[in-house]
């Protein structure tokens, strides 16, 4: 046996995924490990690639709408919103006020539902299984409301070009209001169970640091960016629909770690509750649909629409050549860009941190791979 001082410990190359309980879908991470320390992370994506952009070129504007649900399946309402808004802008159609309010309401409800999944999943990732079930209990109530309104629990197809599938069903507002009254107490419960738990704090504080400069360079958006101390929210920066009339805070945390992103999302759920209260109070009566032609043939032109989805800046770049089908549709997927910053956050992390950091990014692989 010869002594070799240059040889410290052998590195271990491990595949995390594509089938792994904590990669939140079919993501493959190629890890180079030194014991429990992570030397390098290389995400390998594309396992869920479903050619959504190509499909758009083969279908007409209406037919494509259900596909938007499927691409980021946890915030289908936000995707529908972005797409519908892009098509309506191309057509020069403005939805009725009631429709705009309802769309905003649905988007905010979907934000809560999506954040709840994130919340529970982060708990799971750090080993706290119970909070996951609690979050799903509350999410269930939102899904129930969605089901009442659209007939679907996950992939709603509720927004239509020029309006909505139908008006809110009777009892919807009451159901939502009772949920909103109860929900802040539930958040306080999660806060006590998970966020203020010492083990959880030690697992998340100072872990997965992302500086604002790096966030800017990587194009990170959404709660992940706001967790790095940048107050950027498209609902504020480039407001759409009725957001200018609504009052809400854009929570930010300066720390840039997993805990900061976690707290931002927790606070965002409460802000959404606040927004929903205002929506319910001010929801105007009236028509929900405007007349659009049976055959949708926008003039040639293009539009780039951005909205704030639960995961960040969701962009739709839509080009029309005057025919019935989109000439080109491009999604700016927030998870795609957020995930790109992941190796940066994982510098010097432990294997266990990888999972927590990935959880704090709140990626959806359907969103990453499109």
């Amino acid at each position: 046996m010869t002594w070799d001082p240059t040889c410290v410990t052998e590195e271990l190359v491990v595949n995390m995924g594509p089938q792994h309980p904590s990669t939140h879908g079919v993501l493959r991470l190629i890890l180079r490990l030194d014991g429990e320390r992570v030397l390098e992370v290389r995400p390998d994506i594309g396992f869920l690639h479903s050619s959504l952009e190509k499909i758009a070129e083969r279908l007409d504007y209406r037919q494509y709408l259900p596909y938007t649900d499927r691409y980021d399946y946890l915030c289908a309402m936000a995707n529908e919103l972005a797409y519908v808004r892009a098509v309506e802008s191309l057509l020069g159609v403005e939805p009725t006020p009631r429709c705009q309010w309802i769309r905003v309401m649905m988007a905010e409800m979907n934000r809560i539902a999506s954040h709840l999944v994130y919340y529970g999943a982060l708990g799971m990732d750090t080993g706290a299984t119970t909070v996951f079930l609690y979050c799903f209990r509350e999410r269930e109530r939102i899904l129930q409301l969605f089901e009442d309104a659209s007939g679907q629990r996950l992939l709603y197809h509720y927004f239509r070009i020029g309006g909505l599938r139908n008006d809110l069903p009777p009892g919807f507002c009451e159901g939502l209001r009772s949920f909103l009254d109860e929900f802040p107490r539930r958040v306080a419960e999660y806060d006590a169970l998970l966020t203020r738990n010492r083990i959880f704090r030690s697992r998340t504080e100072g872990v997965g640091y992302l500086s604002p400069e790096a966030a800017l360079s990587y194009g990170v958006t959404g709660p992940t960016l706001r967790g790095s101390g940048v107050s950027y929210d498209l609902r504020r920066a480039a407001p759409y629909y009725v957001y200018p009339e609504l009052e809400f805070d854009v929570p930010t945390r300066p720390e840039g770690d997993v805990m900061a992103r976690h707290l931002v999302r927790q606070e965002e759920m409460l802000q959404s509750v606040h927004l929903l209260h205002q929506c319910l109070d001010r929801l105007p009566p009236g028509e929900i649909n405007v007349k659009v032609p049976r055959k949708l043939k926008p003039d040639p032109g293009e539009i780039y629409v951005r909205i704030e989805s639960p995961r960040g800046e969701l962009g739709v770049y839509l080009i029309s050549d005057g025919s019935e089908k989109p000439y080109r549709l491009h999604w700016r997927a927030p998870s795609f860009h957020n995930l790109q910053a992941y190796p940066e956050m994982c510098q010097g992390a432990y294997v266990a941190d990888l999972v927590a950091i990935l959880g704090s990014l709140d990626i959806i692989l359907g969103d990453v791979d499109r």
Partner: protein
Amino acid sequence: MSDVQIFADLAFYLVAALILVSALGVLFARRVLHAALALLPCLLGIAGLYAVLAAHFMFAVQILIYAGAITVLILFAVMMLQRILGGGILAGSHNPLVGLLAAGTMFLALVAALLMTDFAGQDPGSLGVGNAAQLGQALLTREVLAFEALSVVILAAIIGAIVIARTRAEGE
């Protein structure tokens, strides 16, 4: 009392066979990890010998220290080393002559010790090997100097290990 004698003899032979077989396993296992694992029944067998001799304290300590701690340590080291050295350690001997010499000397010394000890004149009870209280008394009164000296040696070894590990880590 012949029944008990038969029982004790039977147990002794069983345990001795276990020790011998597993010791041979340590010698002839091709993978070093298997050799290390074969050490485990060997050490457990020795614990069994203590049990046959009704030295219960030694029995438990043998398992706790040798089987539970030292074997695991060896396994750990083997797993780590095997990864460090890349090719894995061959469980063969590189220097049979030196090994033979060392083993032979050890064997002779043991035989000499066996022949020189007067077993018949010893009362097992007076040695107090199986009794924790007597052992503790002895360690903290009569043998306290040796006990303390040993602890200093072990402390030095621990510090030495840390120093070596540290310089290695800095040398990357």
